[in-house]
């Protein structure tokens, strides 16, 4: 079958730095591929090669079966790109930004304006359409940036860390917008530093480190590999911690971590665990102040996959991880 996106052994070096060290990627048409990795793993370089902005030193890449180097012009007609830094003109209004792109894509003035209005509606920006982008909030910019990559009805869309820097609420807005892209049959490649984001959006996740793919699979497979999820419970009445500990122990089949700040955590596998915990808490009439299912952080993913954390930045949250 033809992949919508296919990279084989991509290599890109800058002097002595290897940004891509033989990267392989594939995405099937109509799916979302999440490319997960820490800063400096080569995510942006990979996107720049796949969107024809950068020539690889070695290896080949195809978008919709077209070679990104030899058929670059044709590839550009099929893709949409939202870079990591807002690719918008601050002095223009939201509508003008989208119309400009429509005009550059060969739409006539009226058609470009109509297309811009459509997209602004869809991305909940209709009211801000005629305001300059310099007055937009971070979340609005991201949404406009997403809309801008969709003006030409691209069949493959590349999103480079589409939610970095947004607060959680705004992030979910953007997620909702991204989901609509594949609903129309498009293929999406998005890069992210959050497993949570890849899990929420991607059909397939490729984890990259030092410019190479180190794992590839569905979110469920990846969670298996990395030790699944963690249930977090804080009972409203701290006096009932022991009862909660017992419930968690029964469901997870292992002892919860020692409580910190009245909160108990336990790693679980499978989606049924949370429901079971909720059911048993309700049956025991224990009210909770906090109850959540948390995915492993990127560091925990890397520990699970490689036995070490994300190497470029031995950040403080690594303190508890095995050295």
């Amino acid at each position, binding site marked *: 079958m033809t992949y919508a996106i296919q990279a084989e052994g991509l290599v890109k070096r800058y002097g002595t730095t290897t940004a891509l060290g033989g990267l392989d990627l594939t995405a099937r048409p109509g799916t979302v591929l999440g490319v997960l990795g820490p800063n400096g793993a080569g995510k942006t370089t990979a996107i*720049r090669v796949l969107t024809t902005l950068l020539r690889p030193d070695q290896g080949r890449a195809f978008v919709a079966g077209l070679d990104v180097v030899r058929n670059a012009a044709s590839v550009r007609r099929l893709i949409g790109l939202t870079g990591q830094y807002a690719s918008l003109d601050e*002095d223009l209004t939201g509508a003008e930004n989208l119309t400009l792109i429509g005009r550059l894509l060969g739409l006539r003035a009226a058609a470009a304006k109509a297309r811009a209005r459509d997209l602004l509606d869809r991305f909940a920006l209709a009211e801000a359409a005629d305001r300059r982008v310099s007055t937009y909030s971070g979340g609005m910019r991201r949404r406009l940036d997403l809309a801008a990559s969709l003006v030409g009805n691209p069949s493959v869309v590349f999103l480079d860390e589409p939610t970095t820097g947004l607060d959680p609420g705004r992030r979910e807005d953007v997620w909702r917008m991204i989901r609509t892209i594949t609903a129309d049959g498009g293929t999406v490649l998005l890069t992210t530093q959050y497993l949570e984001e890849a899990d929420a959006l991607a059909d397939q996740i490729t984890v990259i480190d030092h410019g190479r793919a180190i794992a590839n699979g569905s979110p469920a497979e990846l969670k298996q590999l990395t030790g699944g999820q963690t249930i977090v419970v804080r009972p409203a009445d701290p006096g009932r911690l022991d009862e909660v500990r017992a419930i968690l122990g029964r469901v997870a089949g292992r002892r919860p971590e020692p409580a910190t700040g009245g909160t108990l955590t336990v790693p679980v596998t499978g989606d049924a665990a949370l429901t079971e915990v909720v059911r048993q808490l309700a049956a025991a009439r224990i009210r909770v102040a906090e109850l959540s299912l948390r995915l492993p952080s990127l560091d925990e993913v890397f520990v699970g996959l490689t036995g070490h954390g994300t190497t470029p930045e031995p950040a403080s949250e690594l303190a508890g991880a095995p050295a």
Partner: protein
Amino acid sequence: MTDTALTPRTGRWGLARHSLVLAGRGMTKTRRNPGLLADAVFVPVVFLLLFVYLFGGAVAGSPRAYLQYVFPGVLVMAMLMTGLLATGVSLNADIKKGIFDRFRSLPIGRSAPLLGSVTADLVRYLVTLVTLFGLGYLLGFRIQTDPLAAAAAVALTVLFSFALSWLSVLAGVLIKEPVIVQTVSFMAIFPLAFGTDMVAPADTMPGWLQAWINVNPVSHVVEAARGLLIGGPVAGAATATVLWSIALLLVFAPLAGYAYRWRT
């Protein structure tokens, strides 16, 4: 090729159309930030007043007499500054932000964003021209030839400045910091614009400077503009101006385009 199924609206007309669309963007930006045009107004006003009243009495006996001599030189200098200062800096800012990445991921000619920026800056030439001729008229400058000749003087000056502005485009593409782009462009202006007989006849200057004035292409532009505005021989200087402009365009426009592809 697999291209046939798609709709290729490219080719030469595509490039022209895309460049014009992008020039329209540049002009909208200028309209929204009229402050960006401040130097296009400021430069001709300051230099015309400076030369006429500071040096006029000493060089030509009276400011009014000197105005006739110096005006064509100030015209050339102001246009050079407009060309050199504007384009490189705005282009540099665009490249630093993400917007050129988006343009480059679109199916448009690679040089369309460059051509669009340069075309949008033609507005600046217009502002400089209107300011300069307006103030010149108020101070007492009169065209001593005919409107056609004056138009030719303006056309030659714009042509040469436009050709030379590709040098600043090249700097804008190659240099990372906008401030340095501005400094480099500014440093290029001094030997070029002032190393001519624009403010005083060349025979009053030392030999080494006369030698530079003789090889400096801007001397031809000043001579042609002066001839066309206040009378005098024109043909040789005008021809030299056109040839130099073509040569500068042929060298720096492709270099800027090449550097742009390499940098981005």
